[in-house]
């Protein structure tokens, strides 16, 4: 299975450090823990997503998108 990046939304009443630990123990690679906004970015197999969603303290697990692209600097509309 291909590995993808996911964003784990932490429940408001959960400790993000313990959630990050549980996610890691479940087999995901923690890329960054954003403690001010309650998000853990992980790299994981797609097959792991349902397991991550079932963890206590996890509100949601959502895949990273293709990202953002501005027009070139000389575009009249930005």
């Amino acid at each position: 299975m291909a590995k993808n990046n996911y964003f784990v939304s932490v429940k408001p009443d959960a400790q993000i450090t313990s959630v990050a630990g549980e996610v890691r123990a479940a087999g995901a690679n923690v890329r960054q823990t954003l403690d001010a906004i309650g998000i853990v970015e992980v790299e994981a197999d797609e097959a792991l997503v349902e397991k991550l969603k079932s963890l206590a303290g996890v509100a949601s697990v959502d895949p990273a998108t293709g990202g953002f692209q501005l027009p070139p600097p000389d575009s009249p509309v930005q």
Partner: protein
Amino acid sequence: MAKVPLTSGADILPTAETQSREAAETTGRYIVTFREGADPQAATAALSNFGLRTATAADFRESAVDFQTLGAADSVVLPEIGVAVVSAEPDQMASMSAADEASPILAVEPERYVYALSAPAPVRLEEPEVQEAAPRIDLSPAAAAYVRGYRDALDSFTSSLLSSAGAEASAAAIAPTAFVETNFTWGLQATRVHLSPLSGRGIRVAVLDTGMDLQHPDFAGRSITAASFVPGQAPQDGHGHGTHCIGTSCGPRTPGVRPRYGIAYEAAIFVGKVLNNAGSGTDGWILAGINWAVANGCPVISMSLGRPVNPGEPPPVAYETAARNALNRRCLIVAAAGNDSNRSAGVIRPVSAPANCPSIMAVGAIDENFRIANFSNRAINGGGGEVNLVGPGVRVRSSWPMPTRYNTISGTSMATPHVAGIAALYAQTSPLLRGAQLWLRLLNTARNIVTIPPVDDGRGLVQII
């Protein structure tokens, strides 16, 4: 359809739970109602007895307005309707409430937001729950008279102020005549920034974008904190977009070359580079930038970025989580509604992500004739996909990396920092105006543009008042 959030002050966000409903619906000012037939001069004198400096609507009718006087006044007396709007401490008002029968003061009550009357909430038949969620405002006859009079008086004020300031705009007209940009960009005039004494002093404004030209001469001596979340690239702007957005939100009062284009000229600038020099960025970089801005306690976070979404597409959960946590930590995120439309060709697209999150303020764009911009997206999706406000976003002059120095471009990216800069001005006026309260203040002070439907402009054009 999902409920439109942030329509009511009471049920919007967890932070509102810490505020009483009363506080959520009041402005922090007070309405003083004078006894029927009270002499305006006696009424003014009564306010002076409580240590309040007063201005009178009549002062602004005839001749030139001394705006500094208005700015310094604690209260404005509206003699035609026998009320005054007063800015004062609660204990000061308590003593005024206890005034005896000989006093011309009849009653003192908190000023409530009046938007439901002066700028009716949009009627969206497909979303009846919006109407149910609208705040109920029970006005006494005196207060209703105040509201009508206040509206009329403000129209008079703005006409006088704009003409005395030399601006070409007329507040009475739906659309202004041509703006003259000798001293101020049209965007600063349309949002009344050129009349405001506020500077954003002490307010941290984070602009998450392509970085900034840190050597730009217009920003010499400014408080700038820069960080890059783009691997291998410094915060220095290699694109131009970030420098332009920072210019609008935080540019100087007196730039090297006129006109003035910047709003919060004494704000502390937090440059978060989340888009690389080619203008692209990942969710991971952007969320890291939001996290940094929130951790640094930035009350205003401006994001002139977005990606197109399809009709029916829900908002991205991670950004909504981030934005809700940011609001709980007193940080407001504003984001561009997106430029995917081509209205002249009949193409109108939904508000982009992440501006489509319920807890992120989505900003559309208008031009200098107060028409919706050809490219500006529309509220097609519910559940956060509304346009909340519009800002000036066509032919916007601002800073650009040297040696070019200035550039005039268009986009909802340019409208967004107008809202961010004005948010910083409001935040300067009170430490209570943070998070959801700051959001409400921006909506409740917006100028309704009757010729643009709310699906395109939300509550209207952002204003500093």
